[in-house]
């Protein structure tokens, strides 16, 4: 079986992008992902429950993230599941970031930013 191509999934949905971006800093559970996303976007993006947990399921099915077994914080609520980024997930995040970077470069080169 050929390795999956991250570019087939671009552009990423907003929720997917923010989930992957949060998990790039280390494993987290759903509630923390929402809080970090809100912090990162100054409250402009809120991942409401259905979108958030639906997207986590989608990403897990795609192999971009995986549930973390065992070593969750023992003080934490047992119901919380931790998620971690897989190498495919990291590739997906990189591919999207490069795509966005390309767009930003193109925009900066345009007349609006003093390009020619």
């Amino acid at each position: 079986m050929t390795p999956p191509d991250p570019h087939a999934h671009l552009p990423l949905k907003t929720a997917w992008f923010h989930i992957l971006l949060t998990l790039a800093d280390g494993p987290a559970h759903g509630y923390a992902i929402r809080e970090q996303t809100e912090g990162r976007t100054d409250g402009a993006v809120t991942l409401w429950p259905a979108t958030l947990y639906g997207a986590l399921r989608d990403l897990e099915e795609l192999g971009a993230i995986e549930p973390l077994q065992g070593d969750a914080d023992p003080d934490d609520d047992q119901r919380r599941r931790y998620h971690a980024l897989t190498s495919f997930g990291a590739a997906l995040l990189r591919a999207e970031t490069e795509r966005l970077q390309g767009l930003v470069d193109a925009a900066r080169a345009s007349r609006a930013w003093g390009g020619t």
Partner: protein
Amino acid sequence: MGGHVRLRPTLIRIGRIAFGLLAGLLPPKARREWGREAAADLHQLLESAGRAGGSGAVARVVIRSLMDLAGRIPVEWARVLSMRERHGHVNAGGSRQGWGERVMSMWHELRIALRTLARRPGYAATASLTLALGIAGSVSIFTVVRAVLLEPLPYPDSDRIVSIRHHAPGLDLPELENSEGTLALYAQEADFLSEVAAYDTGERNLVSEGRPERVEIVQVSPGLLPLLGVDAWLGRGFTEDDAGEAAAPVALLSHGVWVNRFGADPGVLGSTVRIDGRVSELVGVMPEGFDFPSPDVDIYLPLYLDPQGPFGAFGLAGVGRLGPGVSLEAAAVQAEALQERLPEMHPGIEADFLEGAGWSVSLERLQERMVGAEVASALWIVLATVGVVFLIACANVTNLFLVRAESRQKELAVRAAMGAGGRRLAGGFLAESLVLGAAGGLVGGPLAAVAVGLLVRHGPPGIPRLHEVALGPLEMGLTALLAVVAGVLLAILPALRWRGSRLAGILRDGGRASTDGPGRHRVRNVLVAGQLAMALVLLVGSGLMLRSFDAVRKVDPGFEATGVVTVGLSLGEGVDGRAGATFYQEVADRVGALPGVASVGLANAVPLAGGSANGGSFYVESMPRDDDELPPVAMYKAVGADYLESLGHPLVRGRALTRGDWESGEPVALVNETFARRFLPNDGLGEAIRWDEELDFARVVGVVADVRELDLTEPPRAWAYLPLVVGEWGYPNMDRAYLTVRTQEGASLSAPSVREIVAELDPTVPLTSIRTMEEVLAAETAGTSFTMTLLLIAALTALFLGSIGLFGVVSYVVGQRTREIGVRVALGARAEEIRALVFRQGIGVVAGGVVLGLVAAFGLSRLMASILFEVSTSDPVSFLLAPVVLVAVALLATWLPARRAARVDPLEALRAE
């Protein structure tokens, strides 16, 4: 904050239940994979929203999460279906083609549905209009709730602005706001507040170009507009210098006054007007739509706050802005702790005194303060009510739908036989119900707009921000959402009942075999019982409101309101007491000479209609008290001769005040019965009281009946009535006065003649109001009657829909059993027996609905406690009468089809086969 404290857990519970119900529409696979986790997450989200932002924030989270979930449901179903497709057809080409096919087949189903419905216009119209009513009711009330309760106030970071209030249950005074003393405490010591400001509403006489007018004003401390984050639109706001003790008088105009009175002329800036006699410069105009603290404000004046000001005069409203990172809860705790510093700042205030008075402070969001807990509870209750009506409407249409599906069973069976799978048939139902839902939404949306227009125009005066109400994109979204929810709800039961496998037998036996099984009508019976139960809940609710309204109306105000007109006039602030009283008395005497006038009284405040009454601690001559003892507190106002007689305010013992009393300057007073009973020995006559240690004691010469002076629904307080002019010892604030004019029977007071009289004496004095006492009393009950009317409309709609449902089911059963009934008649059954047979069918359903409804009503009516007056939430009258009404209507709905059944002609019935 009362209502909100109870409201928040209720809202959270409602939110979780709604989320759970909506999640029930997810495919089971998705529910397993992430539904439970999302629900647990929502719980946490709601709790933290409740802690951080109050009930408004909770409601916002609930709505956004539900909309998010609703959007996710079709996505999840598409996933499940496309997966099945992929498993079913190997190499079918992935999901893209599956999607295309599905869209085509859905389109196909929709076209079929449209055609089917077009062939049955009566059914289609009934169903979609019922849904439209349910949707319009829910959307229109939601619009009001959003604008009034959920939409933040139009100031930057308005949820950080808090209102500061104090409470002292140990003193028998109305709610305490702030004094210069408390404000200085917060301004100097409260580091949890980044800004503190104050305002005070009132009225003034405005004279510009020689025209006098009574205007609503707000005095604001210079920090208030910056605290709100609002600047003058033209010109400038107030500076600290404007509010100095000896500052030149300046004023800001509201946008409305600037347009209406000053012709929107920017040149008025720098010009002067007379406000209560003081020449004031107009320095600015506020932005359009700025309506703090109410839309009635005409003019803003600077408010001077003396940092050394007294602790004891609580007339100022205080607001603060929370410091960075400080939560409302933390601020409230710190504010309470700060109260210990009061004795330090105000040497006259002992810690024991504060403790004895039960002194405390409360912070609440400015928005909650503006709306008020009572209005908020009433709105939530009405919203819940229309939500129930929406559910009843859905149940009703589902019933119609089931009946329709049954009459189509042969057609469905043929489709099944020709290879349509269960999913395909379900798709057919869904298409049809979605078309109905969409039609309901298309009609319901505009209907909601009309309803909102009516509410805004005819709503009671007590609902703040009502003028901001308008249908917005959120309401459009809600309309669409309800239309889809209705569409999906309608299709669920038929789709379950008519799964392909069940249809196999129908063709075999000509569509008759299964018509008479005992479980046949269970689903519809349960639906109808549910509708009747919900209708009963609403009937009980409106019964409670009716009883409450009745109780408010029956409150005896204590005086004879019929035939009394109150006339307000004002000389403006700072008028000399004796000069003022003389002027007003002159007006009163001349009005008394008008034809048709029986008597005219004079006072600086009239019951329920406002004025300048005061309150505070007082001294009784015969009962000296220790300094650390809690002083008794009572209200007082100034009245002239003939006041009691003109108002019909009964004298219980002793004598009334005479004109001689204020001409002689002899200090005398009247007290009401509550005052005498609570504070004075014996019958109170001959005792002496005073409110100020520097003034003479006033001798009590008469005791009058208790009158509801401030609020019709609160128990009477202790009041004293002092003469209008009291020489050297007088308190009266004579900036305004009210005439109480009793007209002779059949006569009425001529407003133009009164105006003429005042203008003759002084053309710069405006009449502030002319209202009959009956109007004043009616305004007191306006809020209750508004809520009552809405609930009653909702309850009657529910009753109507529920009875239609019952009628439909029983009629249908009669139709189905015509043959059986024919046989019975042929075998000699009498008409009564047939009627009883059909009746029994209906009675079971009605009984189920009544029991279910009473249980639910018993639980839910407790939520209404805060808006009821002198009616228990388990009021036996409401709980007895509501079921009687319901049963009566329900019996009629069963009786009509039963009568038809009894008239079945056996020959016709048998021949019809």
